[in-house]
């Protein structure tokens, strides 16, 4: 088992290296003058030159790369023009907001999609099956920002059930004492029920938006792989041995069907992290996505670079976890015979 985990980690290393190189190239390979980008649109020629020396942009490329990696090792991602603060600090303080949202969205989607897919596969051509297929095809077609806006319109404007999309908490509340940065967990830990509910209320719509977005690919894959498992030879053997439908569906079909679904999760995360940015814009969520979008608008370059890098590193780590999880579940991978 340990050797499997180590092997997976080694396999992830080239991806990490690739990410660092690409983000480096993205910023240094800009058309025009990189220094001007970092100095900002309102900078004077003098300021640009200062920045150029400060960031070492006058040195040859390989030296710049070394410096870049060294900076990264120290957690230095540059400074934001608009706030003047180090990018790394901003990202760190905003990360929990995005993480909480994404995780909740994922939980919502899996809680709906997996049972839906299983039911659809075990009852072919039923209403549930058709529902699942429609949701899978339509869900993939919905632009996530559109879903968010529609939800806001229906549940906030028309029905008044949801609060205004103005961030993580209503203005009347102040955030709970920071332990994890997740408001739900922190308020629960602090025993503050009212705060917990308030955070939850703000979370529902954006999490639902993300959930709906991730629902479609997961439901589709679950249904497809359950169908494949149910028509496989070993399920036929299980049926011929007279095992109960529950045993056949759960112990035999489901566990095998989950393998491709776990693999799909990687792709789903890619979509989710991207969709995160859009959802944060719609709901004014103070996460790293909106940080990046604000920076874009202000042509503030360093935060954007830091954002891309952070997202990529998180994604590599997530993929690694999924790989390891897969290795744990599938003995064929675990026991390299």
């Amino acid at each position, binding site marked *: 088992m340990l050797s499997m985990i180590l092997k997976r980690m080694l396999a992830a290393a*080239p*991806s*990490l290296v*690739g*990410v660092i*190189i*690409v*983000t480096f190239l*993205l*910023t240094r*390979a*800009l*058309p025009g003058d990189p220094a001007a980008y970092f100095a900002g649109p309102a900078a004077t020629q003098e300021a640009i030159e200062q920045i150029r020396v400060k960031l070492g942009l006058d040195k040859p490329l390989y030296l710049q790369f070394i410096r870049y990696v060294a900076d990264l090792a120290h957690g230095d991602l540059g400074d934001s023009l608009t706030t003047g603060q180090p990018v790394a600090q901003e990202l760190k303080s905003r990360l929990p907001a995005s993480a909480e949202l994404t995780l909740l969205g994922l939980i919502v989607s899996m809680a709906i999609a997996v049972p839906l897919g299983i039911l659809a596969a075990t009852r072919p051509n039923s209403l549930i099956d058709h529902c699942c*297929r429609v949701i899978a*095809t*339509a869900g*993939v*077609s*919905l*632009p*996530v*920002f*559109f879903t968010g*806006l*529609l939800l*806001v*319109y229906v549940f*906030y*404007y028309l029905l008044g059930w949801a609060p205004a*999309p103005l961030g993580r908490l209503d203005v009347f509340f102040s955030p709970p004492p920071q332990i994890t940065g997740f408001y739900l967990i922190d308020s629960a830990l602090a025993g503050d029920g009212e705060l917990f509910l308030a955070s939850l209320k703000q979370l529902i719509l954006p999490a639902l938006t993300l959930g709906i977005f991730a629902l479609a690919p997961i439901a*589709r894959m679950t*249904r*497809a792989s359950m169908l494949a498992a149910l*028509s496989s030879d070993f399920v*036929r053997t299980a049926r011929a041995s007279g095992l109960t439908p529950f045993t056949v569906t759960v112990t035999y079909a489901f566990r095998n069907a989950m393998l491709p679904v776990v693999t799909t999760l990687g792709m789903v*995360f*890619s*979509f*989710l*992290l*991207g*969709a995160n*940015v*859009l959802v944060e*814009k*719609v709901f004014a969520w103070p996460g790293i996505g909106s940080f*990046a*979008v604000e920076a*874009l*608008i202000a042509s503030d*370059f360093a935060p*954007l*670079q830091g*954002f*891309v890098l952070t*997202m*990529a590193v998180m*994604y*590599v780590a997530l*993929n690694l976890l999924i790989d390891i999880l897969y290795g744990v579940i599938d003995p064929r991978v675990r026991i390299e015979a």
Partner: protein
Amino acid sequence: MTNVALTSEPRVSESGLIAALRHARYVLRDNAVTGFAFALFLLIVLAAVLGPAIVPHDPLASDTAAALKPPSWGHWFGTDQLGRDVLSRVVVATRLDFLIALTSVALVFLLGGLAGVAAGFFGGWTDRVVGRIADTIMAFPLFVLAMGIVAALGNTVQNIVLATAIVNFPLYARVARAESNILRNAGFVHAARLCGNGELRILLAQVLPNIMPIMVVQMSLTMGYAILNAAGLSFIGLGVRPPTPEWGIMVAEGAAFMVSGEWWIAFFPGAALMLAVFCFNLLGDGLRDIVDPRRRT
């Protein structure tokens, strides 16, 4: 499970094309949904081609007196904050979005498709290089990478096309690679070698025609992603600039008004987006059924 073969057989000997068309018509008749998708596709193409010529109002003409009017007989989709007719803007935007998607998909098909096919067929260094490139791209959340690319290279429509092509490259290359890898060891490929065919000729004349149908299906599905990608980028302000009508930008502009009740400004472009992507996905699924019934989901 059972041994009964359930494939259909034509009565007389037919050439491949006629048989394929007949099968296509059979599937379409059977599957109304695909027919519907195809009709929708034609509608979109029509709107893209004829757009500016058939709209009732000038998409760029602003009329502040008529701003923020809900849908009515004069303006079927209402007017936006500058008094522009939403319907006209939505229809005209079809062309831009469609072109962006089409160009990036064509690019991806050429680059990704050929790279993938070569990687799968020749293996060795080609496979390793293409694999490395694909893996490096896939190491990023795709939309985030697209953001980075457009931000780095400049905020233009061409760069949106390029960014979309780049982020779709791995998926395409992977599908192409998987298919040609399977065929690489197929009996008929070995047989072709025995008949004196060189490797390149086998790739082009024997393997590629067998892969084409899957690639076309994938193209249709990729069109959907491409449109969503482009719209997403425009939504956060990258790529297209106002006042150019484009679905993503229109939704962004209408977002603020959605919260205060003027839903039509963002709704109609969003619905158009959804419809277009839905159409391409349905079409892709339908094509897949025609091409290879074993892959039905």
